[in-house]
């Protein structure tokens, strides 16, 4: 059973088409990146998945069928619009939200203690939420999302306001959750985090899915015919190279369609060039994102 199956959903608000046609499937135990520029339809897609909005068209199957009250307890959600009860103590706030997710009060208290300790928030648990820093509130949001040990987690910009230490902690926890079989959808604009964590991605633009699949496959698909070279001296003229551009302290050689990287490597070695770096130029996700969104290509 796939945790989520979305098929051709569409949603309009008045004259604005927020989602036009989006389809994707989540596989159990993966971290899935839901990407897209601002206003692309990501939040609406998530809200449709969670049954907050009804789609105008299309279907959503979540944890094996339509959303139910029981299934809500098996899902953890951290929305883009962050929110905790500001005027009460942190522990009371999280225990209350935990009990709404089906935990008993004692279970919620026990798990909260563990997570507060792990996130280094124990000494702040009696403080009112509004007295906590942004980073602390972000950690509290993450605790609220995972405390009831959900099977499916939908998390929007999980690393906002976190310092490098806590960013690593959250990444470690996400890895642990994936290893234990939890499926995670992560929506973020931090592409390097997606490259590091996600197995597969979906890129939405203007309400449509424009890029979907395995991250490595996508990068290879967008790699083009180019190599990155760094040598001990200036590179000689190489037949089959269309253009040469500087790229992060290396040189990017764009090859003609009938030239292979092996051919370039042979030429360089034959010319006695000592190579410090030679690799197939794979584009970053940032580059793919910009390329796809700017060109409107799929």
């Amino acid at each position, binding site marked *: 059973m796939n945790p989520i199956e979305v098929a051709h959903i569409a949603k*309009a*608000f*008045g004259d*604005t088409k*927020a*989602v036009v046609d989006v389809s994707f499937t989540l596989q159990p135990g993966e971290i899935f990146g839901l990407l897209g520029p*601002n*206003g*692309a*339809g*990501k*939040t*609406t897609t998530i*809200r449709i998945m*969670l049954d*907050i909005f009804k789609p105008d068209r299309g279907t959503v199957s979540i944890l094996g069928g339509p959303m139910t*009250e029981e299934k*809500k*307890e098996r*899902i953890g*959600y*951290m*929305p*883009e*619009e*962050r*929110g*905790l*009860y*500001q005027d*009460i103590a942190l522990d009371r706030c999280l225990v*209350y*939200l935990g*009990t*709404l*997710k089906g935990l008993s009060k004692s279970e919620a208290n026990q798990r909260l203690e563990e997570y507060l300790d792990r996130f280094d928030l124990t000494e702040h648990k009696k403080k009112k939420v509004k007295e906590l820093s942004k980073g602390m509130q972000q950690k509290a949001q993450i605790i*609220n999302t995972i405390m009831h040990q959900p099977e499916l987690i939908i998390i929007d910009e999980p690393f906002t306001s976190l310092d490098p230490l806590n960013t690593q902690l959250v990444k470690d926890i996400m890895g642990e959750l994936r290893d234990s079989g939890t499926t995670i959808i992560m929506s973020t604009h931090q592409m390097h985090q997606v490259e590091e964590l996600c197995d597969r991605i979906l890129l939405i633009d203007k309400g449509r899915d424009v890029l979907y699949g395995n991250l490595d496959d996508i990068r290879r698909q967008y790699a083009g015919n180019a190599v990155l070279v760094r040598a001990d001296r200036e590179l000689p003229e190489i037949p089959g190279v269309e253009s040469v551009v500087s790229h992060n302290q290396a040189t990017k050689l764009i090859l003609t369609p009938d030239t292979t990287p092996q051919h370039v490597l042979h030429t360089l070695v034959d010319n006695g060039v000592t190579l410090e770096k030679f690799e197939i130029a794979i584009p970053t996700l940032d580059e793919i994102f910009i390329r796809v969104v700017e060109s409107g290509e799929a």
Partner: protein
Amino acid sequence: MSKIWLVASYDFKKHAFKKSFVLILLSVPIVVCLFIGFTALMISFENNDAPLGYVDQTGLLSDPLPLPGSDDDERVEMIAYDNEDQAMAALENGDIQAYYLLADNYFEKREVELVYLEEPGENAREDFYDFMQINWAADQPPEIVQRVADGNNVVVRSPDGRREFPTSGPTVGQILPLVISIAFIALVLFSAGYMLEGVTEEKLNRTIEVVFTSLSPSKLISGKVLGVLGVNSLQLITWVLFGILAVFVARNVLNFEWFQNMQLQWDSIAMVAVAGVLSYLVATALMLAIGSTIVEAQEGQALGFIFYMLFMVPLIAVVVIGENPNGPIAVGMSLLPFTSLLTLSLRNLFISIPAWQLALSILVHLLCVIGTVWLATRAFRLGMLRYGQRLKFNEIIGRKKPTKVERGQA
């Protein structure tokens, strides 16, 4: 525990454990206690139970009839003096608080002279007036004397004969429905505030989206309504208990005459209670709808104030209602939500409200309750994810498709 009860319990504790709530809870009893205490204090300042002297140079009081109630120490003791010197000596000695002089030309001038060192008690003056009154009629048959002693007893009766006012003004039983309706208005105002706060809290602090993925909007709103209902019940019970205690103290400890014969009108109390409960439901549902549509809490408070004012409209029209309690304005305001509560109570002071009007009022209120609950539920569902964007009335009633939440969020 059911999630509805979890929400209800959370919301109840959130309101009930606030210092401001305790202040509100105690404010009404404190005001009642202050009122009773102040009244008792004023009466004690005005009254003086020390004996009162008189010097009668006319012979009118040579063999005086005693005041009714003199034997029970309910009246000020009247002491006769042969001449002014004796009376003055007694006054200066503190034996009496003042003395009256009935000069020998009293029958011509009909004037008495009051001599005192300090202002005598109001009760002493009244008792001497009664004392003179019965002794003027001393040569009449005993039943005449008794009638004179009883004083004026004009009963104002409504044309249908179902409402009576004694000379002394409305009784506790007649006033009580009005007091209950005012208590209900206070309750509605507080509950509306709690409901507004409860609904806007999740929207303004952005927890609503997380909460929606934990339980359905209908369960969330049911829990919130139950929470506010619990808080209001606590308020109402506390106020009723304090009210009973206050009446007990006023009646049995302070011996306020007004509370001695209460004659509760249970039909009127039931009428006001039904109108109060229905008004409560309409107002609460409306505040729920308002809370769902607004962008900032201050907006809701401003809109809520308009509803508060609607409750008070009958006070502005009290003269019209009093002069013509069966007139079209009074009847119309009895039928409409908000104005009905006070209007019914005020009319009830003067007339017996026809059953058809009560039935029609209840029907109108029930329809309004159904309408506002529907409106509130729709507004809640449509408006709660509108961060920073106002919900339009046409969208709530379904005449216009909702606009996009926010481009940046999609």
